[in-house]
């Protein structure tokens, strides 16, 4: 503001200085004999441009910048308010481009760029075992075995602290506080939370006092459970809660941003881990460590490999074929989302560029109309740089206005799409308009304004000012700009074609995916989770095999009774149960096995099978076909019989004689557990539809965790009735995760579906913007060449010829753009990589179909200007200028 005051003063001084000069010159001429009037005119003429000189003097002082900027801003606002149509179209276009870009960047920043919420996350590493022979689909790396963890923890030198947590989450029934609830537990070594630098909201970490004899077992609550079940009460610390009928003491509450194991509701110490802690067999301990200062990941890797080699020598049977890998600790969802997010970021940048190109075209057209005004301003003394600056300010202003609307669009988009985002992409929901995102939006607005405004601004001051004042036909001045507009349209079409082809490829991939047969019928099936509490490990470890079998028979019998009661409900076709539902998102129950009579491979090379415990009529309820042998009956409860799937039968008994053979799934335990194969059923997608086929071994007996209810009508309507039946047998049983198989299927394909949906939306946006560009350029060309068309018609051209001329130009531009776009797409679609499923990156159907679609849409865009050209009245056209 002080600047403005100084501006006024220096303006007055400059004025006075130049006036003095002119007056002196005038007086000199009067003394020489001229008349006063003539002397003054002569003095002014000799001076040259007075205003120009003033302008140039002002330019010497950059401090004038602020005042000039302010006047540019006001001027720009006034101009935009005057041409409301132009402003509306431009703002809408920019809003789409800037909004889309900002929205995707917001997701990128919250998923990919967010630092891990641990202290000094940069020197945290993850230590895992690798399978050197990849016989398992879905996960190349596993955690360490407990024996290795405790052994190596004391011996490492390059790491300052080593901690672990278990990936095998156990479940407990939380009772005694209103409705029983199923909670998932994870196990942590005592130093896990201190290693990660987690700050407890209430209470404290596990301590040595919790491991003393006679102390109540300690648990730590997750923030989510603390809020939902304990009302966020800090007094919960010190309470005793009932889990599976035993009392546990709450010692602490974790902060809200701690999500190391997403599904974990409570954390327990590893001392309560229900397995042998010296075992070197099961790889349950995901190990996190902190590097000592100055130590690199590579050095840690070397040390771990040395320890692994030592373990291989000490325990050859269990460690053969296992390697060890050390890597930087990363957010797991970031890794899986990287490719789709990068692709989306690329696509929205294209959308933004197309939008900017539209603005350039709009500005070129508008500047052509304002040519005389610009020339006048230049003649009155505005310097070139000043004119350019004015126009750039105006286009930047447009960009910011568009940006504000764009942010509103992005916000609305988040609300709508947040509903559709799959639950694994929970961090997507945390994305919002804040902090870095706003800064990014600001930068994008600024850049868009400059990109859009630069070329038209520089062009408008390049024209020869004299020719504008002569009554010259418009075509010569606009000839050059027509070429530029043509180039812009061709680029727009190319830029729009690439996302469209990508979207087409993804859509075909998705279609192929949905055509995959999951192995069972998904319609009209309701599932719900109702788990019996586990017997404490201390009890089960002392049970003999016969006692175990009897317990399992008892539980299975109870389950079948409950299932029979549910089956009596109206509308229910069949009821059964399974320990793990298909289409699972993570590994839950699998083990290595060996086959009786076949050569014994080393522990690490043994094949892995997914083991499932099922109710009697499971295969019928899911409509999984029986291929050989028979399904389970009640007599199987007291024997160890198994049903395997087709892939496993074909692989190991290619002659089809799997029935009666025996497999041992406890091959790494001291005592074997042989089961006889009594049947072969069809393959089932145990994981995602696009996962490789698995080997499945089914058992009967026990209380399976999930109820599977096939109905003949709407399954959701039966939820409460079925729950009531379950509670009749055990009112303390928590019933949870009530969903239909169709919903389960939708959730499992969501990681493919959601990016495809977004990409399609943006590709359509690009298509629309590009077609608006085509329409705009054609329309403008027609309006510029109205006289030429009139002349042609007067000379005998028919309407059809005019139509051909216009459409011809449109077709040439479109085809050039398509050619360019196809070339770009060829180069770029290979980056889609893992997003494609059974579709080649150069799939011919898509590469043909999308351009044809584009041509049709572009034809529609050219139609209106073409009709306008046809309707030109030659007489009227020739009369106007």
């Amino acid at each position, binding site marked *: 503001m002080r600047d403005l005051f100084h501006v006024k003063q220096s303006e007055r001084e400059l004025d006075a*200085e130049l006036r*003095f*000069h002119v007056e002196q010159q005038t007086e000199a001429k009067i003394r020489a004999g001229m008349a006063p009037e003539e002397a003054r005119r002569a003095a002014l003429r000799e001076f*040259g441009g007075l205003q120009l*000189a003033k302008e*140039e003097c002002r330019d*010497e002082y950059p401090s004038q910048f602020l005042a000039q900027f302010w006047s540019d801003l006001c001027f720009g606002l006034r101009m935009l308010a005057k041409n409301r149509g132009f402003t509306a179209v431009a703002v809408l276009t920019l809003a789409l481009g800037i909004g889309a870009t900002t929205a995707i960047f917001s997701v990128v920043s919250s998923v990919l760029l967010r630092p891990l919420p641990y202290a000094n996350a940069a020197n945290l590493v993850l230590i895992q075992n690798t399978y050197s022979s990849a016989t398992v689909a879905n996960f190349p790396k596993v955690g360490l075995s407990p024996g290795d963890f405790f052994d190596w923890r004391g011996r490492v030198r390059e790491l300052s602290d080593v901690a672990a947590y278990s990936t095998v989450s156990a479940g407990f029934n939380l009772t005694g506080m209103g409705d029983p609830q199923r909670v998932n537990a994870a196990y942590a070594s005592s130093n896990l939370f201190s290693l990660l630098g987690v700050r407890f909201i209430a209470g404290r970490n596990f301590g040595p006092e919790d491991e003393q004899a006679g102390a109540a077992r300690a648990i730590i609550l997750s923030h989510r459970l603390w809020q939902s079940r304990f009302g966020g009460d800090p007094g919960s610390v010190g309470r005793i809660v009932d889990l599976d009928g035993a009392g546990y003491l709450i010692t602490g509450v974790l902060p809200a941003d701690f999500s190391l194991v997403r599904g974990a509701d409570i954390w327990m110490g590893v001392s309560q881990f229900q397995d042998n802690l010296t075992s070197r067999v099961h790889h349950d301990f995901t190990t996190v460590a902190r590097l000592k200062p100055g130590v690199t990941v590579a050095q840690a890797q070397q040390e771990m490999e040395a320890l692994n080699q030592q373990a291989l020598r000490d325990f050859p049977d269990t460690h053969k074929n296992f390697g060890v890998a050390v890597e930087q600790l990363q957010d797991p969802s970031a890794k899986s989302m990287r490719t789709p997010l990068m692709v989306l970021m690329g696509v929205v940048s294209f959308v933004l560029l197309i939008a900017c190109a539209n603005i350039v075209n709009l500005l070129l057209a508008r500047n052509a109309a304002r040519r005389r005004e610009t020339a006048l301003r230049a003649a009155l003394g505005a310097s070139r740089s000043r004119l350019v600056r004015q126009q750039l300010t105006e286009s930047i202003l447009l960009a910011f206005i568009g940006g504000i609307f764009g942010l509103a669009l992005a916000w609305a988009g988040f609300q709508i799409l947040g509903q559709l985002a799959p639950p694994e992409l929970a961090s997507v929901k945390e994305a919002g308009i804040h902090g870095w995102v706003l800064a990014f939006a600001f930068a994008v607005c600024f850049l868009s304004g400059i990109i859009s405004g630069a070329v038209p601004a520089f062009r408008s001051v390049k024209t020869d000012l004299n020719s504008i004042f002569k009554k010259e036909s418009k075509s010569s001045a606009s000839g050059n700009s027509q070429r530029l507009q043509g180039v812009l349209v061709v680029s727009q079409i190319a830029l729009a074609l690439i996302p469209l082809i990508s979207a087409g490829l993804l859509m075909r991939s998705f279609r192929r995916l949905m055509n995959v047969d999951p192995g069972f019928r998904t319609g009209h099936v309701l599932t719900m989770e109702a788990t019996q509490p586990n017997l404490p490990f201390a009890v089960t470890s002392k049970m003999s095999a016969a006692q175990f079998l009897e317990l399992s028979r008892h539980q299975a019998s109870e389950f079948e009774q409950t299932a029979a009661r549910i089956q009596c409900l109206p509308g229910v076709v069949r009821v059964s149960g399974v320990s793990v539902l298909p289409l699972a998102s993570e590994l839950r129950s699998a083990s290595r096995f060996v086959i009786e009579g076949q050569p014994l491979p080393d522990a690490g090379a043994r094949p892995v099978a997914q083991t499932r415990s099922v109710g009697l009529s499971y295969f019928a309820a899911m409509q999984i076909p029986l291929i050989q042998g028979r399904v389970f009956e009640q007599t199987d409860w007291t024997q160890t019989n198994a049903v395997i799937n087709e892939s496993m039968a074909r692989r190991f008994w290619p002659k089809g004689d799997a029935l009666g053979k025996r497999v041992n799934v406890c091959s790494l335990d001291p005592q074997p557990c042989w089961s006889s194969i009594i049947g072969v059923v069809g393959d089932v997608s145990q994981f995602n539809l696009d996962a490789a086929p698995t080997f499945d071994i089914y058992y009967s007996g026990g209380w399976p965790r999930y109820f599977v209810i096939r109905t003949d009508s709407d399954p959701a309507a039966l939820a409460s009735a079925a729950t009531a039946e379950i509670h009749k047998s055990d009112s303390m049983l928590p019933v949870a995760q009530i969903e239909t198989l169709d919903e389960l299927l939708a959730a499992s394909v969501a990681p493919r579906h959601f990016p495809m949906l977004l990409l399609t939306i943006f590709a359509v946006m690009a298509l629309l913007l590009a077609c608006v560009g085509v329409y705009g350029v054609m329309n403008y060309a027609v309006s510029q060449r109205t006289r030429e068309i009139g002349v042609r018609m007067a000379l005998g051209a028919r309407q059809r010829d005019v139509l051909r001329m216009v459409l011809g130009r449109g077709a040439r531009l479109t085809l050039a753009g398509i050619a360019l776009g196809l070339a770009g797409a060829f180069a770029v679609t290979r980056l889609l990589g893992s997003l494609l499923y059974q579709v080649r990156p150069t799939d011919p159907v898509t590469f043909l179909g999308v351009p044809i679609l584009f041509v049709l849409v572009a034809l529609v865009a050219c139609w209106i200007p073409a009709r306008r050209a046809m309707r030109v009245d030659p007489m009227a056209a020739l009369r106007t200028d």
Partner: protein
Amino acid sequence: MNPIKTDLLQGTLDLLILKTVALGPQHGYGISLRIQQISREALQVRQGSLYPALHRLERRGWIAAEWGDSENNRRAKFYKITRAGRRQLEVEETNWERLAIAIGQVLSTVEPGA
């Protein structure tokens, strides 16, 4: 001699102004007259470019401005050279002489075959 209206390069105008003002403080009109006078009418500064040049030199700190009274008792802005300006004048004079010698050497080379 007909005044040749040479379109002076920006650099040379700075040099002329500095030299003129070094001879004594003067206002803009006086500077343009003096240049005309001293060059014996050969150089006539385009007045539209004089004032921007003056302001530029002032911003650079080579000349300093002060409002005073002119010969006929009118308020006018007087410019005088500063110490930095004197140093710059020396540098510019040296450069100009070097340039003149170089051009002279080029012009005095004999054409081949002459």
